[in-house]
Every structure is written in C-alpha cells, then in structure tokens.
C-alpha cells in the first residue's frame, strides 16, 4: 500500500453527449445516463473510501464544452454551513454524500442549461482531458475515461498533444468504452500504460468499473486483468484518409501522402525530383594521318 501522506487523484471523464444518450434511452431503457452516473458515483465513493488522502474529480464532456461536476466552484467558495446538503439519513461518511449530491445537481445543470450551437454531434474529449491534466499536476493522478459516442477525427492533433503530456507526467489514461471501439483511446492507453476495455454488457458498468479500473498501478501487477488490445499504429494519409503501410512524408510539415506528388498540399512547398543523370556520348578523336 502507498505511504500514508501520498495524495492520489482519480479523475473520471464522463462522455455526456446528449444525442448518443438520447438514442441509447430509446434502444435500451434499462441503461440510461442516470444509471451510468450511479455507477460513476459508486466508483468515486470507493476510491475516496480506500484511503483518507485519495481525491476525486469528475468532468462531464459535452459536445462543445466540458464542465467539472466535482469539485465544483460553488462548493469551494461557500463554507459548509448547509446542514441539509451534507447530512444524509443513513450515517454515510459526509464527504461521500456531499460528493454524490453535488454530482447529481451539477449534471442536471449541465444537461438542462448547455446551449448547443452548430451541427457537431461528436464529443470533444481532448478538451476534458487537457483540463484533467492541469488539475492533477502536483500529485500522483490517473484518468478514467468513460466513452459513449464515436471518435472525433478533427481533434487528432490536440488529442496526441494531450497523450504525450500525460506520458511525460506519468499519468495513466484508462478507457472504458460503452459502444464502438475508439482508435484514439486505444493509442492513449497504450502510450501511457493504462487499460482499455470495451464492455460487453452496458448494464453491468458498475461491476466492470469496480473490478478493472478501481485498483491503481501498484495493485494491478497482482491482478489478472483483460489483455491489452491490438493497437493499429499505421498512419492515415492526408489525401484519402486510408491507412497505409508505406507512405511519403514531407520533410517540412510532416504530412503523410500515399502517392508521390510534386507539391505538398499542406505547406505548398515544391519538392525536388531526382532526375536520372544524362550521359554524354564520348567523342572519338580522329587520328591525324601523318
């Protein structure tokens, strides 16, 4: 077990894409967003109960913004005068009940008040991860991502920046995927050393979270956990978005192409093409008749 005064932070990033969850409620009414958040609260409470110095943060990742569900600004600023908020009838540890109430209240605010502009239906996960990294700087931390909707191809570069920053800070990124496999999260888990799992039965989310994702790094070596997924590290060419095995890379802007072209479309530099050397025919010297 870790030392007594070592602070360990768990950041849970929940994908609350309203479109996906709305469709999910129609597909499978037994598993809705509120059930998912119940499972998140269970794992959050368990983490805080494991050691006195453990800390928790929960971020909801929406289509165009990400919000901290816990700890929230209103809790920080106000003093703990509200008795009705903190006391729960069943003698639960006060911190846990405060956390649960805050998460429930904030998620209601987020889902009802978030304005929604534009046509994008994808969750911007990179922003939430960036905020999670900033909040976990001074202490040992790890991030657990619960992903529902599909990947957003637009945020590839920001996502990779976030992954490398996490790797440098030794922060693990674990991923629990509900619906479709996500190549970006597989790469994130592989590079930072975390666990990737696609859940076969969504209804049992709480069980999977407790079994696989609750133990931290030192304890994981003693457990038999799901094997790592096979990650596809092939690059996608910039012209067709196909995965290629051999490609051409521009030396200036590092964009990848599947075919040779004389001009790079990203940085518009003209490339030097190696032409075959011209061989001049040798002139024979005529001997002068003496």
């Amino acid at each position: 077990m870790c030392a007594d005064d070592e602070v360990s932070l768990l950041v849970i990033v929940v994908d609350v894409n309203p479109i996906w969850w709305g469709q999910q409620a129609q597909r499978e009414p037994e598993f809705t967003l509120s059930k998912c958040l119940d499972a998140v609260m269970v794992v959050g409470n368990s983490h805080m109960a494991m050691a006195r110095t453990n800390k928790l943060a929960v971020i909801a990742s929406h289509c165009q913004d990400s919000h901290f569900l816990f700890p929230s600004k209103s809790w920080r600023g106000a003093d703990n005068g509200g008795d009705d908020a903190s006391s729960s009838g069943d003698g639960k540890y006060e911190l846990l009940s405060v956390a649960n109430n805050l998460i429930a209240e904030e998620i209601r605010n987020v889902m009802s008040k978030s304005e929604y502009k534009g046509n994008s239906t994808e969750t911007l996960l990179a922003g939430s991860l960036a905020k999670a990294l900033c909040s976990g700087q001074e202490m040992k931390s790890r991030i657990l991502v619960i992903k529902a909707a599909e990947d957003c191809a637009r945020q590839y570069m920001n996502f990779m920046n976030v992954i490398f920053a996490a790797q440098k800070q030794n922060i693990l990124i674990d991923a629990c995927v509900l619906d479709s496999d996500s190549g970006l999260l597989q790469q994130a888990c592989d590079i930072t050393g975390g666990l990737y799992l696609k859940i076969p039965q969504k209804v049992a989310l709480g069980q999977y979270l407790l079994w696989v994702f609750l133990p931290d790094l030192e304890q994981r070596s003693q457990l038999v956990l799901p094997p790592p997924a096979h990650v596809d590290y092939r690059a996608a060419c910039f012209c067709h978005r196909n995965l290629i095995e051999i490609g051409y890379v521009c030396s200036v802007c590092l964009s990848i192409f599947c075919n040779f072209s004389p001009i790079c479309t990203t940085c518009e530099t003209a490339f030097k093409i190696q032409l075959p050397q011209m061989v001049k025919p040798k002139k024979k010297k005529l001997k002068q008749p003496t």
Partner: protein
Amino acid sequence: MDEEPERAKRWEGGYERTWEVLKEDESGSLKATVEEILFQSKRRRVIESHEQVRLGMMRHLYVVIDCSRSMDDQDLKPNRLTSSLKLLEAFVGEYFDQNPISQVGIITTKNKRAEKLTDLSGNPKKHIDALKKAVDSVCAGEPSLYNSLNLAVQSLKHMPGHTSREILIILSSLTTCDPANIYELIKTLKSLKVRVSVIGLSAEVRVCTVLTRETGGLYHVILDESHFKELLMMHVKPPPASSSSECSLIRMGFPQHTVAAPTDQDAKPSFSMSHLDSSSGPGLSLGGYFCPQCHAKYTELPVECKVCGLTLVSAPHLARSFHHLFPLQAFTENSVEEHQGDRFCQACQGELKDKTIFTCTSCQSVFCMECDLFIHDSLHCCPCCIHSQIGP
C-alpha cells in the same frame, strides 16, 4: 581582422549597480525578489520565438565532448567530466522525446586526437550506455578542435539535403591543437551547411566565437551547473532551417505490431535484426514489427531497415513533432486586480492566488501561473480553445 559586433564587456561598464535590483520587503527578507527573478526566467523561455519559421525537423547532431586534462577540474561536482556526462544523458533523453525521427552521434577528443564514441543512430539506449561507460575514462592531453570537426563532417556530408546537420561542442580547455588551418575548415563547414554550436565551460575563446558566427550556431559559456543544464536544453528544440535546405518527400514505412499466438502452427520465434549488433535482452521473440517492404523483423521503432534501407516509424512519432509546427501563442499577462470575472483558473479550477494571471488571446480564458507554464511546456494547446477549434 573581421569586424566584430560592438558589445559591452563586463569591465567596460556593461553591468552597473547590480545591487539595486534586489529589494527587501518589510521584514527584511529577499524571498519576494528571488521568486520574481525565477519567475521572469521561466517566462523568458516561453515567450521566445513563436513566429512561423520553418524548422529543421529531421536532425543529425554530433556531440563533441572535450576529454582533455582540464575536464578533471573540480569546479563542477564531482569533476567536470562526470557532471557533463550526466547532463548529456538527460539531454539525449529529452532530444529523442522532442525529435523522435532524428539521430545523434558522440565524439570524444583528447591527446590531440578525436575518436567516435557512438555512430549516428536513432536509438537512445546505445548512447546512454556509452555515456555511462565513458565516466571511467581518463582525461589527458589537449583537445583538438580541427580533428573532431573533421571526423564529424566525414559522416555529416553524406547525409541527405533535407535534414539539418549540426555539431554541438562542449569545450572546457582554453587551447586546441590543430594539424592544419582551422579557418579553412570553417569555410568548408559553411559551404556544407553544417551548423556548429559551442558550450564553453571555462571562458570565451575567440576561435569558437568565429566558428559559431560563421556557421550560424550559438556560443555560450556556463556560469554554474544549472546554467549548463539550461544551455543544453536550449539545443533540444529544432533550429530554424536554413533557407537553402532542400524539401523533399521521404519514403517511410509504417509497420504494424504483430504477435503470433503460441498456438498458431506456423508461429516460430525469431531473432530481430537489431540483435545482430548487440546481444542484450532476450533474443527470440514471437512478435515484432515487420518491415512492409522486405519483412525484416524489428522490436523497436523508429529504426532504419538494415536490409532495404526504408525508414520505419509509427504515426505517434511524427505526431510528437507537430507542436513545433503549430506552436502555441504566448498568453497575455495581466494583474489579478484588473480582472473582473470569477477568480477561478479555467484549467485546474483553483483559485487565482498569484499576482499575475494569464489570458489566452483567442478564447479569452483565464489561467493561473502554474497552468500557464504547464500549458506552454508540456501540453502545447489551450484547453479552452480545443473546444472550438477545427484542428487538422
């Protein structure tokens, strides 16, 4: 004599009344001033050069270490050589972290000769092992600047034109023993577009000043060990590419990692090509990266295939260099009293306790000093701009 730029030397009055910078506060402590000075030096690193300059991403760098008698001096603890080698190990690690498709080679010089410690390669472990072994070597004789530059140039001149050719010299001696005219060699270096930088451990030497000025490199002399580390880390960032370097399309392979299951009938353990040179580590393995052109097996990337010469990388290696191409703008500094909104940092949700706060120029979000440093050093993207950006 060529014209030297006018500079105020220390004894010519360049430094005047330096004690006035330090100010005591009410209780007589200098803590606030010291913190202010440290903070300014951190900010300086962030603000420097964020313009759109073309950078040399694929670098071939030779590090020349002076192993002469003067490296036995104990002004850096325990002696100059041990301290330099330790800092160079950290440098090699950072270098490959920031420039994953580049290569490094190490040359040592002593007894008026130069010899290669390691060849140009992209594998950091080899260099770090060689640096660790070099701690036991004896420092003797005089260094030879000419011989070490000549040795480096022999390999650098064959490198393709689109890569950057660099030499970094760590020179502690004040003398050098050269067999021929070094100014001729400087002309050759300039024509081959090799960029030479020098870090001096003792004092400024005129030959190094001319060398770095002519080839377009940097010359610094260290003040103490932490300054030494800072100067070394300055060379980790890719330098601006010279205007005449060629741009070309480089053919690269992106192999997949395949692991044959032990139950598969055709699966046989095999050696990887990198084990031809070194015998460290387990030899036979079932999985690895297979070159798409010739199917030679390798255990690690990036590597240049020994059989067919194709450079093998994986997509994250190229992605590591993207932040150099799209650098993040420096945030504007404001004082915390002027700020009207909430006193909360948008990234870490902490209260804004410092005197200065930082605002992103595009999304107007407010950050505290720690988050600003973290964003510019490691993250390279603003957490709030990501939400509205349409990235590549």
